[in-house]
């Protein structure tokens, strides 16, 4: 299965612009990278994580998704780095790290 190519605005030419820049399909943010302006990203410590899913519930952009092992991790294509997940985590399993750092 090939992964759907993620487009950013910089892939579009002026000819691709819809009349009035209308977005004609609902929910199409999932095919675009909307998190590339993030300055901090959440790092999950799986040792501490209790899989309580609070971060998944609180994420305002639905960027946190459950993994096959049952952890909840941010999809960095969409995560804006707001830090709500790190703040809400009851066991301190999520820390915010500046982009560019390991």
């Amino acid at each position, binding site marked *: 299965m090939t992964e759907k190519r993620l487009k950013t605005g910089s892939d579009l030419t*002026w000819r691709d612009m819809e*009349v*009035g*820049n209308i*977005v004609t399909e*609902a929910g199409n943010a999932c095919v675009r990278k909307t998190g590339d302006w993030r300055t901090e990203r959440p790092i999950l410590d799986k040792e501490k994580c209790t899989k309580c899913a609070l971060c998944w519930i609180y994420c305002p952009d639905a960027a946190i998704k459950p993994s096959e092992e049952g952890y909840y991790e941010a999809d960095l294509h969409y995560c804006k780095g707001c830090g709500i997940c790190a703040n809400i985590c009851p066991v301190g399993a999520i820390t915010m790290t500046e982009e560019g750092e390991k």
Partner: protein
Amino acid sequence: MSKRVGLEASFAAAEAARMANVDVIAAYPITPQTHIPERLAEMVADGELNAAYIPVESEHSALSACLGAAAVGARTFTATAGQGLELMHEVVYIASSMRYPVVMAVSNRALSAPLSVWGDHSDAMAVRDTGWIQVFCQNNQEVFDMTLWAFRVGEDSRVLLPVMVHFDGFHLSHVTEPVFLPEQEEVDRFLPRFQYPFALDPDKPMTHGAFGPPDIYSEAKVAQEVAFRKSKDVIIQGFKEFGDIFGRYYNLVEPYRTEGAKVLLLTMGSFGETAKIAIDTKKNKGESVGLISLRLWRPFPFRELRQAVKNAETLIVFDRCISFGGPGGPVYSEIRSALYNEKKRPKVVSLIGGLGGRDMSVEDFEYVIDRGQRIAEEGSKELFETVGIRGKVTGIRG
């Protein structure tokens, strides 16, 4: 069969909106536009027009309400003048950028200060670059005709742009002239139902008015500019279709007795009618003069204008607005720029008058032609001259 009735331009515009069977009108009354919303509100109240009339608290709200109506696919009309158009200003840009084909009648009015309710083109020039299709009318028949035509062109699926119909405050808005009103059947034939392809619909969700970060804004604006310039083809087609049904054919640039004329006068709006008499008078004296009335102001008709003036030696452009600190009257400035790269071009002279409702008589236009010729021959240190100004002016230099 059309019928001939006496109508002031405001009522002609309202009548055109009624016959276009508009769905939504949102307007705020302001002199000299007041009679338009007043008459339309009366039509709606009396059941002559099945439309929603939205009374609003300002012009900013008036155009905003129109945008909302257009977004669900309603045929939408508004009207304003002078300060009202200024108060609308930010929404004026949004209408064209979001490609909502609102039609707006503008009874052209001077801008404060000093406070003036009377006519000139300062309000129109302030919205010159807003991306609306803009036409100027010479008489009340044209106000009716252009308003109908505006819906036809703006709503065309190849265009989807708002249209402003400019006509001079008081000189037309409050003056009664004979106007031919067509049959409803003819109007319906000319103007199909508005089918907006992107109408907001809960069953087919989409986003209007998303924001544009730096990596997409340039593409959005260039796409808008290309679409705007391409609308000229539909504008011309619209005039042709209008003529075929109603018998009155219009051009982007209207020449009057210009054959072989060495000196051309160019005006926009109702002053063209007065200037025609000055042209007739001078022709009778054997002078080689003619008149150009610029109908389409945006998108600017470069090719048609160049064609119309290419054989003239002198082109006198008469403006009803000052472009403060600029190269001359705003229309003059555009026209001189349009001709700059032409190998053969007339000398272009800027004269300004009729500001804030000051009348321009036939004799005044004879003076404009004489004085314009003199400036073309002898040159002038001043960038433009103001007709009838009291006191010698020497401070307008480049």
